[in-house]
């Protein structure tokens, strides 16, 4: 990862010096172990803030919509697919972005780390040869990095950027064998009542912080439906019905657009399994319409087009 850091800094420095971009969006060291934080660099002397490691979890494409300047953005595979989505939907132009693509073998899930140490505080963490060493007040654990990767990373089939202007590091071999919908299929196999109980229990935790929505690159509406007062679709109090509809509609709004970057899931402070909904939508979009979000800027967005042979067995 150290070489990737050096490469990213080099590219960023040149971009800024050549005035090819006005701003670099990348990651810098966070203030806690295993954390990094989005970093905005405008001066070439500051590129040494930029880093790359297995804690670069955020989807930086989230910072692109409505920007008018030229931006160099550091993007993992999933992030580049989000950028494609934003270009498709005219939220940013292709010319505006210089995409520094980074092949990614996965980002660590903070919640899995937390669970591994049973919520105890980690003072120090090191990544070495595929192992993560976690040190706390009275413990030192070595855990395989693969086990700590976020669920969306563990089933990722776009480790390599799908669009880029510069590629950092070497391409990673894609793992074609993993069934990315395994969890969804298991859930589908439950009875209707079991699914409802599980959904209710999970969604009832929500306290409407909107971190999921705000972390998503594709939730860029000027006025989100939850804030609409004329008409008022859902209330703002903690009523289960309102909360459920918020999540169902938000998931629906990602149809044909969500790339399963996991940003929503990672942002949620109370560990709601949001991907249970968004991944199901993604699965249906794939199976019903053979469409995969964010693969090419030439693609027409899913719900802006149709196929005369689209499935309709469910229609009376």
């Amino acid at each position, binding site marked *: 990862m150290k070489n990737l850091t050096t490469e990213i800094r080099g590219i960023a420095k040149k971009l800024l010096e050549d005035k090819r971009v006005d701003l670099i969006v990348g990651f810098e060291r966070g203030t806690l172990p295993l954390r990094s934080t989005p970093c905005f660099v405008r001066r070439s002397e500051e590129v040494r803030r930029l880093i790359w490691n297995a804690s670069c979890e955020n989807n930086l494409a989230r910072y692109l919509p409505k920007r008018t300047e030229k931006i160099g953005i550091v993007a993992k595979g999933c992030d580049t697919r989000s950028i494609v989505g934003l270009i498709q939907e005219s939220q940013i132009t292709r010319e505006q972005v210089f995409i520094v693509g980074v092949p990614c073998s996965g980002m660590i899930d903070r919640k899995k780390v937390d669970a591994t140490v049973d919520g105890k505080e980690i003072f120090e963490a090191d990544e070495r040869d595929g192992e993560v060493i976690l040190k706390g007040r009275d413990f030192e654990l070595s855990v395989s990095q693969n086990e700590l990767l976020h669920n969306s990373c563990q089933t990722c089939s776009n480790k390599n950027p799908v669009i880029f202007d510069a590629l950092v590091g070497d391409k990673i071999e894609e793992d074609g064998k993993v069934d990315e919908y395994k969890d969804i299929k298991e*859930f*589908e196999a439950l009875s*209707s*009542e*079991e*699914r*409802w*109980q599980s*959904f209710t229990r999970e969604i009832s935790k929500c306290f409407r912080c909107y971190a999921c929505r705000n972390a998503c690159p594709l939730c860029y509406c000027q006025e989100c*439906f939850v804030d609409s007062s004329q008409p008022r*679709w*859902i*209330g703002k*109090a*903690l*009523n*289960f*019905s*309102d909360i*459920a*509809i918020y999540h*169902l*509609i938000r*998931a*629906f709004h990602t*149809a044909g657009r969500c790339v399963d970057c996991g940003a929503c899931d990672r942002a949620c402070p109370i560990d709601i399994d949001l991907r249970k*909904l968004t991944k*199901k*939508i993604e699965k*249906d*979009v794939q199976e*019903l*319409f053979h469409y995969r979000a964010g693969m090419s800027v030439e693609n027409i967005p*899913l*719900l*802006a*087009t*149709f196929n*005369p042979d*689209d*499935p*309709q067995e*469910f*229609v*009376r």
Partner: protein
Amino acid sequence: MEEFREQKDQWEPKIIAFLCNWCSYAGADLAGVSRFQYPPNTRVIRIPCSSRISPLFILRSLQHGVDGILVSGCHPGDCHYISGNYVARRKFAILNNLLEYVGIEKGRVKFSWVSAAEGKRFAQIMKEFAKEVKALGPARKLVKSKIKV
């Protein structure tokens, strides 16, 4: 709203039918004019095209005690706005699967294509739908209740 009229055998479902103006609404109108009977459970909401339907309409209906929702548009290829129903078909497919996935009873939300000439068929669809929804019972799952104090 909290007063579910639920005494056994006396409860009747409340059904909303979103009908596209050019085909399905005209079909419903033809059913009326031709005196094809169907149960009075249905309240019709006329929309310009089936693509006007936002999933919010359907979920909000469920939130407010509606037991069955039917969305009906023109047959594919016959949309007054050329391709509205085609795009709507995609939305409906996704929404239909999502609702069933989280545990909303299959059969509460239904989609159909009814043309302006299909008065008899419309009545038939409404009769069957009312029967299906009655068998499912009152829709409780997404109903909005007062918050606990």
